[in-house]
C-alpha cells in the first residue's frame, strides 16, 4: 500500500466537521492544560477517557493525541514566562527560557519553541507515516516469544529510564504486575485471585486505575501545593526570533528531532526523557557550556523540539505492536480497547481510517497549534488565574460519573478512588505512577505471550533465545541491564558519564 495516497485518504477522514472539531478541541485542551501547572497530559487524558467512549474511535484518538502534543506546546509558555513548568516535559525549558524572559527575550524564546515544536512534530509525523507501516509488515511475523521478549525489554526500560529512583520504579512496576494478574487467567479463561468478588472476575479496569492514579491523585496532590500567585508576566515585544536566534538554534532543532523521535518510541521514554536528553546533548555539544542556564536559546529550542517529536513517534509502537511506550499511550490504548479495538500489526490494514486519519490529524493539529500559540500567548497565560480547587472539584465529579458510565459498575468508582489515594501517596513519597500503569498493561501481554510460548515449545525456555528476533531482543535486554549496573557504579564513583547519565542526573536535580 502506498503511504502517500493512504495519507491523502487520511486527510479526507480529518476534514469532516466532527473530526476537525475534536482535533481542535484536543489541541486546545492540550494547550490549556499544558499552561496550567498541575494538570499534565496524562491526568487530562485519564479524565477524558470516558468521554471518548461515546464518539467514533477516530475522533477519540485524534482528540487524545491532540491533547498530548498540544500540551507539549502549552507547557512551554509558563516555563518560559514564569518559570512554572506547565507540565513535566517542559520543566527543563524553564532554565534557559525564563532567563531569556528576564533578558527581555521571552518572545523569541516562545517563538523558537513553537517553531521547533512544529518542525519536530512535522518531521516525526512523516517518520510515523513511513516507519509504522514498515514495522507493521515486519511485526506480522512476531509470535508469542517475540512479544514476550519485547514486553520484557519494555519493562526493563520503563524502570531504567524512569526519571526517579530506579529502585522505586522497580517496586512500582512489580506492584503493577501483581495487579495485572487479578481476574481472568488469559490462557485457561478461568478467573483467579478474585476473592470471590464477581466484580473482579474480569480483572481491574485499566481506565479506573489510570483515572485514579493520574487524575485524582494529581488533583489531590496539587490541591496541597499552593502555587504561587500569577506574578507579573514579562512584556513580550516580538515573538518572531531574529536571524541570529534562528542561526543559533536551527541545529538544535535538527538534533532535537533526531533525539526525540527514537526516544518517543522507547518504552518508558516520552516527553520528559526526550527534553532532558536533548538539553543534555546541547550542553555537551556547545562550545561554551557555561552559557546554559543563562539564557541560551539552544536550551529552549532543542528540548521543545524533542518533546514534540517524541509525542508523535510514541504512537509507533502502540499502533504497530499494540505496546504502549509511556503512560499517555497506555491510556490511549485503554481508549482503543474501550471501543474493542486491539491495536497490533493488523491495525493499519484493518482500520486504515483510524491509522491514517490520526496521522493526518496530527498535521492539522500542529498547524492549529502554531497558529494558536504565537498570537494568543497572552490569553493562555491568563488561565493561571483559575484556582486548582475549582478545576479539581469539577474534575472529580466528571471522573466519577465517567468511570461509572463505562461499565455501569459502582465498583469501578471505588477502584478509582482507591487508586487516587494511592496515586496521591505515591507522589508524596517520590514514587512515580507511570511504571505502575505501564507494568499493568505490559504485564498482561507478557503473561499471555510467555505462556503461549511455553505451550508452543512444550515448556522449553530456549525458545526465547533460539529464534532470531526474540534472541536479539533478549540480548538488548541483557545489554541494558549491564549498562544500568555499570552506570550506577560509575555514578557512585562520581564519574561524568554519557548522555544517559547526564539525563538521569538532570532528572534528579
Amino acid at each position, binding site marked *: 500500500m502506498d503511504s502517500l495516497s493512504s495519507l491523502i485518504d487520511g486527510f479526507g477522514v480529518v476534514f469532516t466537521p466532527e473530526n476537525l472539531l475534536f482535533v481542535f478541541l484536543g489541541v486546545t485542551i492540550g494547550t490549556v492544560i499544558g499552561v496550567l501547572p498541575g494538570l499534565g497530559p496524562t491526568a487530562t487524558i485519564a479524565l477524558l477517557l470516558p468521554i471518548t467512549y461515546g*464518539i467514533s474511535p477516530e475522533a477519540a484518538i485524534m482528540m487524545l493525541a491532540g491533547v498530548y502534543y498540544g500540551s507539549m506546546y502549552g507547557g512551554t509558555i509558563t516555563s518560559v514566562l514564569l518559570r512554572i513548568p506547565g507540565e513535566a516535559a517542559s520543566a527543563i525549558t524553564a532554565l534557559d527560557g525564563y532567563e531569556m524572559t528576564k533578558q527581555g527575550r521571552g518572545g523569541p524564546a516562545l517563538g523558537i519553541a513553537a517553531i521547533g515544536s512544529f518542525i519536530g512534530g512535522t518531521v516525526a509525523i512523516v517518520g510515523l507515516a513511513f516507519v509504522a507501516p514498515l514495522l507493521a509488515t515486519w511485526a506480522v511475523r512476531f509470535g508469542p516469544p517475540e512479544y514476550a521478549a519485547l514486553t520484557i525489554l519494555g519493562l526493563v526500560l520503563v524502570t531504567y529510564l524512569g526519571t526517579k529512583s530506579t529502585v522505586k520504579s522497580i517496586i512500582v512496576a512489580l506492584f503493577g504486575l501483581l495487579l495485572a494478574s487479578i481476574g*481472568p487467567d488469559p490462557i*485457561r479463561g478461568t478467573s483467579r485471585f478474585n476473592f470471590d468478588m*464477581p466484580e473482579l472476575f474480569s480483572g481491574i479496569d485499566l481506565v479506573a486505575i489510570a483515572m485514579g492514579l493520574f487524575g485524582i491523585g494529581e488533583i489531590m496532590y496539587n490541591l496541597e501545593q499552593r502555587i504561587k500567585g500569577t506574578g507579573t508576566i514579562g512584556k513580550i515585544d516580538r515573538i518572531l526570533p531574529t536571524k541570529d536566534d534562528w542561526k543559533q538554534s536551527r541545529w538544535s532543532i535538527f538534533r532535537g528531532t533526531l533525539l526525540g523521535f527514537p526516544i518517543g518510541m522507547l518504552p518508558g521514554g516520552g516527553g520528559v526523557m526526550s527534553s532532558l536528553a536533548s538539553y543534555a546533548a546541547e550542553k555537551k555539544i556547545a562550545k561554551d557550556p557555561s552559557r546554559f542556564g543563562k539564557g541560551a536559546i539552544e536550551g529552549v529550542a532543542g528540548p521543545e523540539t524533542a518533546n514534540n517529536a517524541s509525542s508523535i513517534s510514541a504512537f509507533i509502537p502502540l499502533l504497530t505492536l499494540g505496546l504502549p511506550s509511556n503512560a499517555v499511550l497506555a491510556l490511549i490504548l485503554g481508549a482503543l480497547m474501550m*471501543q*474493542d479495538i*486491539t491495536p497490533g*500489526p493488523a491495525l493499519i490494514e484493518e482500520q486504515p481510517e483510524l491509522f491514517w486519519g490520526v496521522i493526518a490529524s496530527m498535521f492539522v493539529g500542529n498547524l492549529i497549534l502554531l497558529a494558536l500559540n504565537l498570537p494568543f500567548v497572552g490569553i493562555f497565560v491568563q488561565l493561571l488565574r483559575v484556582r486548582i480547587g475549582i478545576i479539581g472539584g469539577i474534575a472529580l465529579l466528571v471522573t466519577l460519573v465517567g468511570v461509572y458510565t463505562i*461499565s*455501569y459498575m459502582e465498583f469501578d468508582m471505588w477502584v478509582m478512588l482507591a487508586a487516587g489515594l494511592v496515586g496521591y501517596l505515591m507522589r508524596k513519597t517520590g514514587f512515580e505512577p507511570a511504571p505502575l500503569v505501564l507494568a499493568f498493561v505490559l504485564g498482561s501481554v507478557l503473561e499471555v505471550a510467555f505462556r503461549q510460548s511455553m505451550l508452543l515449545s512444550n515448556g522449553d525456555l530456549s525458545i526465547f533465545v533460539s529464534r532470531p528476533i526474540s534472541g536479539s531482543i533478549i540480548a538488548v535486554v541483557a545489554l541494558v541491564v549491564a549498562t544500568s549496573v555499570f552506570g550506577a557504579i560509575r555514578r557512585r564513583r562520581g564519574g561524568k558519564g554519557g548522555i544517559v547519565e547526564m539525563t538521569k542526573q538532570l532528572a534528579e536535580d
Partner: protein
Amino acid sequence: MKKLGIGLVAGVLTLSLAACGGSGSSDAGADAGAADGYPEDDITMIVTYAAGGPTDIAGRAVAAAFEKELGVSVVVENVEGASGAVGSAQLSQARPDGLTIAMTTASAVSRVPLIEEVGFTQDDVIPVGTVTEGAGVILVPADSPYKTIDDLVEAAKKNPDKITIGAAGAQTPQAVEIERMKSEYDVPLQLVPFQGDAPSLTALLGKNVDAIVPSYNAAVRAQHEAGAIRPLAIMGEERADYLPEVPTLAESGFEDLIYGVSTFILIAPKGTPEAVVAKLEETLEAAVKDPDTYKALDGDVLVPEKFTGSKDLTKKMKDESAALKDVLQELFG
C-alpha cells in the same frame, strides 16, 4: 457525545429498574398473558461484551430492527466481563417483563455457569432465539503439508503435543472440541489459546502455529479468497453452505465433536410471560431477516437459514451442556 448521553440515561434507567425489582419482584409475572400492549415502554438490551466487538455489532443491529418492528426505543447497554456471564447474570435479575433483554453467547449461559460461580444458572434465563451461528473452521496455511484433516490428525499422533493449534480462547466452543479430540479420540494436538480470532489468524499467517479454529469471519474469508489459507474441517453438526466441499469433523471420524460453534442468542429473564417471549421470538425472527440487519450480521455466513426459536434453542443448549458438563469441569473446574 450522543452515545454518552444515551449511556447516562441507560445508567439511570438501570438504577431505577433495579430499585423496582427489589420491591416488586413478587408480583412479577402476575400480568402473564398480557402481550397485547407489549412493549408498553422502551426496551433495554444488555450486550454482554464490549462495545465495538462482534456481539455488540450484532446486538446493535438487532436492536435497530427491534425499534423498527416494535416502535419503541431499544437502548443498548454494554455490561462486559467473565466471558459474557456478568451481563447475563444482570439480565437474570432484571424484572421479567420483556423490557430488559440481553444479547449474549450461548456459551455464556450454558457453559460458563458450569465452570464458574457467576451468580446464575442456565435455568435463570429464557433463551429467546438464535441470532447467528458461526461454526469453527480448522484452517492451515496454504503451503502447509497438511492437505486434509486426516493429515493433521496423523501428524499429531506422530508428534504428540508438537502440532500447535490456536483458538480464540481456552473456553471457546472450538477450543473445547480440540481438547475433547485429545481426551476422547487420542489426538494430542497442542492447544494455544489467543485473545480472540484476529490474533490467532495473525499467528497462523506468521507461521507461529500450525492450525487455527476461528469462525469463517470476514478476515478469514479475505485470506481464504486470497489463497493464503486452506480449510480442513467444519466443527458444526452439518457442512456449511459457504464451504460446501469442506467435511465436518463428525464425518471425519469424530462423531461427537459437533459443538464447535459460536452462537449468539437473545435471552430474557426467567418468569417472562410466555406471550411476551413469543412476541420477542417473532420479532427476532423478523429482525434477522431484515435486509439491513442481515447485512450487519454478515448474514450469508452467520445467520442460519432456519430460525431457531425459544423451545428448540433451550433444548439444544440443554443437550449441549449435558454432553459437555463433565469435560468442562475436568478442564476448568
